[in-house]
């Protein structure tokens, strides 16, 4: 490896790269690693994006994560209700988690088992049904295994390409699952079948390891390369400016 980047930092830049080309939209990552990634993208190659302070304003400056009293350059008030106007406008790219995801990109973080009396109640549908039919979505899955990458999800919170193909033109135009980043690799749906395919394996992870950790047949195009490592500038921003308390380490689950 060309520098001392660790796997959590490689995941951060992999998620950050999903925002490339987004321009002046709301970058809306959920969870520590995605938030660090969004702030990194905004601080470097996507300066036009707007981001919340994760509470109730849009802040123009790069706020360190885990510091609720950090100084904010407030550019707009964004109470929770107004967020829906942005969701429904389509000018948003959200990064959510997934407890289960299937080959078509159907995502579940609602519950495991029968939804009426689940074996494990999880977060619920939350905003996933509305997000997927309105704006671009990516997923961050820190525990890639045959339990999270499954042939069929128990409940569909966020619909994937097979279900969306049955819906209106408007919804098909709005819907995009840009990228899935796990602790093992990067995935997308850029093929005619709209099935999940490998984009890159993270350094020190073999393609075989990804295949055996995935509960369905993954498309593996020829010429797969390793996920890029962060640049020196990116590492400095991650470690010193955006995440000085190393919250990225606590979120990351090493297999």
């Amino acid at each position, binding site marked *: 490896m060309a520098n001392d980047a660790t796997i959590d930092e490689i995941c951060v830049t992999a998620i950050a790269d999903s925002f490339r080309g987004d321009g002046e939209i709301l970058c809306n990552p959920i969870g520590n690693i995605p938030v660090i990634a969004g702030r990194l993208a905004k601080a470097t190659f996507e300066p036009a994006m707007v981001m919340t302070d994760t*509470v*109730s304003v849009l802040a123009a400056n790069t706020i360190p994560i885990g510091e609720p009293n950090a100084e904010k350059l407030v550019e707009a008030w964004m109470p929770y209700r107004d967020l*829906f106007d942005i969701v429904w406008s389509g000018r948003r790219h959200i990064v959510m988690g997934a407890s289960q995801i299937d080959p078509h990109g159907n995502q579940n973080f609602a519950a495991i088992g029968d*939804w009426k009396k689940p074996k494990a109640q999880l977060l*619920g549908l939350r905003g996933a049904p509305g997000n997927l039919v309105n704006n671009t979505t990516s997923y961050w899955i820190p525990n890639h295994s045959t339990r999270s990458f499954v042939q069929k999800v128990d*409940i569909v919170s966020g619909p994937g390409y097979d279900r969306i193909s049955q819906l209106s033109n408007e*919804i098909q135009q709005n819907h995009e699952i840009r990228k899935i980043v796990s602790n093992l690799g990067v995935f997308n749906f850029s093929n005619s079948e709209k099935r999940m395919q490998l984009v890159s394996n993270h350094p020190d992870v073999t393609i075989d390891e990804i295949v055996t950790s995935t509960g369905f047949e993954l498309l593996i195009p020829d010429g797969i390369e390793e996920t890029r490592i962060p640049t020196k500038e990116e590492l400095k921003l991650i470690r010193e400016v955006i995440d000085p308390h190393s919250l990225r380490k606590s979120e990351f689950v090493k297999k």
Partner: protein
Amino acid sequence: MGCSSVEVVIDKKMTETEVIEELSDGMTIGIGGWGSRRKPMSLVRAIARSNLKDLTIVSYGGPDIGLLCATGKIRKAIYGFVSLDSIPLEPHFRNAKQEGTIETSELDEGAFYLGLLAAAHRMPFYPTRAGLGSDMLMMNPEIKTIESPYKSSDGEKGEELVAIPALNLDVSLIHMNRADLQGNGQFLGPDLYFDDLFAKAAKRTFMSCEKIIPTEDFLKEGSVHTLKIPRLFVNGVIEAPRGAHFTECPPDYDRDEVFQSEYAASAKDSQSWENFKQKYLEATSHQEYLKAVDSRTQIEESQNG
């Protein structure tokens, strides 16, 4: 005086106990706030220790839904989520779901907002795309889709949309930072959430507040933009200092995270729950509850000292 004074003839002041007398079994009750933020907890606890039953609770849920699940008050919960924020899933709600003791209507967070808006506007429904493609419609078979009467961009026929039914409420309970005796409410924190819509979506609304102030003092507390609850949507005002405890009520106070952890731990088993209930829920008034909360802090302080 800059304006001619009008004698105040409206006095809507009530106690928590008087609010409970206005409620009955089987009612549909909306609760304002959001997750573990600015919840009318003194009113929620008054319901928890009442004889009320079979309630339908409509909420961006937090410990309101959790407490009322744990005390067996809920027949049905209608929600966009049920979370304690710093603890992503409400643990008492989790128990109720996994034991199958409550009926639920789980909606997309934005769809829930449209249901409140429809009720506030006396509309039967508002349309949205949210829910199409996901399992929301499978989980809520009473929610129908409609065809848009307008042709869609591809020309053939109208787009299929989800008709989110109005969330009509018998009563709403909300908590504000300030209010006057006439029922005008003021929020001073960063977010009103949906409290104005809860008030408008309900036949009657009872509003607790940190402090009752004279009407002429509102603009000393905050700008005109903070006066979002006009009295024509409010039937009763309850003065409850720290009435949102342990949820946050900025700028008056933050969330009591230590207490919230204690509350969350009480979902572990029936003994933990009994202990919590005895200590905090059997207090017969909000003032008694605050005494129980504060004595615990004092014990901690003396132990640490």
